[in-house]
């Protein structure tokens, strides 16, 4: 997979992306050569625990990593046939907000506190669509109505602090969707919200991307959130994609011991028996050289070979659809959660 040419059908092709932080004797290897494709209109979930590289890899795609702390060492990010990593800052600026946009984790701090939300919406439209002020304002009202802000027209002049967290996230979504991007990246969009609002925001995002045919990358550590949203899921660990499969296949027959561990640690309402099984140990220190599989020390299926050589991401044996796993000794693929789990979590 990692050496294959970019798929011409794909909207986005990431190849061998490698990102490091710092320099000198303390270099943190945050993303270690990941590759994947995203079809137009597809929703891809990226899951993994904190520090696994899921946010960093997405910021690298947007080219929003802090400079000069972070460095993209190698790889390519091909959006509609052009490699984003080759573009100048100015060319990249024209693509951001127009062809691709991003929604961030914390809606409380992601809107400019001194600007009315009207200006934050119209500025995107003026930047990319060359709309006149009045046209941009009309469009801003439409967008706010689309994301379900009541009495949108009267709220244009309001400042972010006059909105609740959920409403602010709706405004963020409106800003991100303003120019109809083909690709939307949502980095933990519901983590900072309370549970009832989470469901509303996810529903809003689902309808918005389905209606417009927008491709969505949904980054989360919450397996419940992706279950009902994504067609395909990448599981990341220590800067690698360790498993990639369709949602049904991943929840139905998880192969990587890490994915198995994640699914076992989800609390279930209907099964009173048994304790949750946590994954033993800690994720590895990414500033050290890791030989072999980074999950080896925590793995229940570990072999000697795992400590010598990193397994490539390859088609899992006897899997139906595309089901890639980076493991020398993958699990059998037993169902850990009853079928129907995905839709139940999403509801």
């Amino acid at each position, binding site marked *: 997979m990692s050496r294959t040419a970019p798929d011409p059908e794909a909207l986005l092709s990431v190849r061998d992306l490698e990102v490091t932080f710092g320099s000198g004797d303390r270099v943190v290897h945050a993303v270690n050569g990941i590759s994947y494709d995203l079809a137009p209109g597809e929703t891809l979930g990226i899951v993994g625990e904190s520090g696994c590289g899921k946010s960093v890899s997405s910021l690298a795609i947007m080219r929003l990593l802090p400079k000069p702390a972070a460095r993209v060492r190698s790889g390519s990010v091909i959006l509609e046939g052009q490699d984003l990593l080759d573009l100048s800052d100015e060319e990249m600026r024209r693509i951001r907000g127009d062809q691709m946009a991003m929604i961030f984790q914390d809606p409380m701090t992601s809107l400019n*506190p001194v600007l009315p939300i009207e*200006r934050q919406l119209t500025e995107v439209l003026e930047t990319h669509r060359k709309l006149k002020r009045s046209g941009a304002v009309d469009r801003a009202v439409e967008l706010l109505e689309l994301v379900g802000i009541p009495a949108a027209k009267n709220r244009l002049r309001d*400042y972010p602090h006059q909105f609740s967290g959920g409403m602010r996230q709706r405004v963020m979504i409106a800003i991100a969707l303003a120019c109809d991007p083909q690709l939307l990246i949502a980095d933990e969009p519901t983590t900072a919200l309370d549970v009832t609002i989470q469901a509303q925001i996810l529903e809003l995002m689902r309808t918005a991307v389905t209606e417009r045919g927008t491709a969505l990358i949904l980054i989360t550590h919450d397996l419940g959130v992706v279950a009902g949203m994504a067609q395909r899921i990448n599981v990341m660990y220590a800067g690698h994609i360790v498993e990639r499969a369709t949602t049904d296949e991943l929840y139905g027959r998880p192969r990587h011991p890490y994915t198995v561990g994640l699914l076992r640690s989800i609390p279930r309402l209907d099964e009173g028996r048994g304790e949750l099984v946590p994954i033993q140990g800690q994720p590895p220190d990414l500033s050290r050289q890791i030989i072999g599989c980074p999950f080896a020390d925590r793995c229940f299926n570990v072999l000697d070979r795992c400590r010598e050589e990193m397994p490539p991401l390859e088609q899992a044996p006897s899997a139906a659809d595309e089901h890639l796993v980076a493991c020398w000794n993958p699990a059998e693929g037993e169902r850990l959660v009853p079928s129907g789990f995905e839709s139940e979590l999403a509801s």
Partner: protein
Amino acid sequence: MTGAAVSQPVEQQERSVGLWGDALRRMRGSPAAIIGGAIIIFFVLMAIFAPFIAPYDPTRGDLGSSYLPPSGEHFFGTNVQGQDVFSRIIFGSRLTLGIAVMSVTIGVTVGSVLGALAGYFRGWIDATIMRGVDIMLSIPGLLLAIAVVSWLGRGAVQIAIAIAIVNVPIFARILRGSLLALRDADYVIAAKSVGVGGPALLLRHMLPNAIGPLIVQATLALATAVVDAAALGFLGLGPPDPRTPEWGAMLSDTYRYLTDAVHLAFFPGIAIVLAVLGFNLLGDGMREALDPKLRR
């Protein structure tokens, strides 16, 4: 008069309470800011209406009536030349406030431009500007001001420029620091993520959020400027015409007669202390009002 009439303004009030509205409301609740503001307004009115308040021409002396103690005729007494101290203090506020405001305006403007360039562009621009700032900050402020005045001359504008030069590196450093902290702010990254860049990012998203500490420092710098102007006057580097009323010069004219006529030093001293206190209290009140951590 009650029901409907009351409910409408409440609705109005909830709208459009921006950053400044919020800050202003909180300043009204701070005793320090109110007292400081009142003192400053008092001095500003005094400076504006000086010709109407002052009972005598501040420059005209009468050697026959020098050294008079405070009385109903001369509230603050008279000095060696027989000039009315009360009138001189009132007119002196014009010069002092004028120099303070002018020097801080120049200092903020030049300092902000340098700080914004350094904080936004980074790299060699930043390094060059900030090393210059370091050098200037290593020279004692008053010494630098004395050097500039002796180079440029002793007019009010020259004094203002001298004090401004002392302030420039302070403002540059503050704005650069705020901008650096904002580079990684969530809303700045969010603005970048939809293609905002260049001047719009700096002017619309970063500067308005970085300006709070600058305003606080500017108010506090007004206090320092009053002291600096008085110090220059005291050292004989004030306005060249000795008849011009200037608080610092009034102090230095009289310290030799301190044992005989305390009032000559007392009243200009009080004026300087009050003006400095007013600006400092106002600055502290603003610091609290503009502190983003305290904002709701």
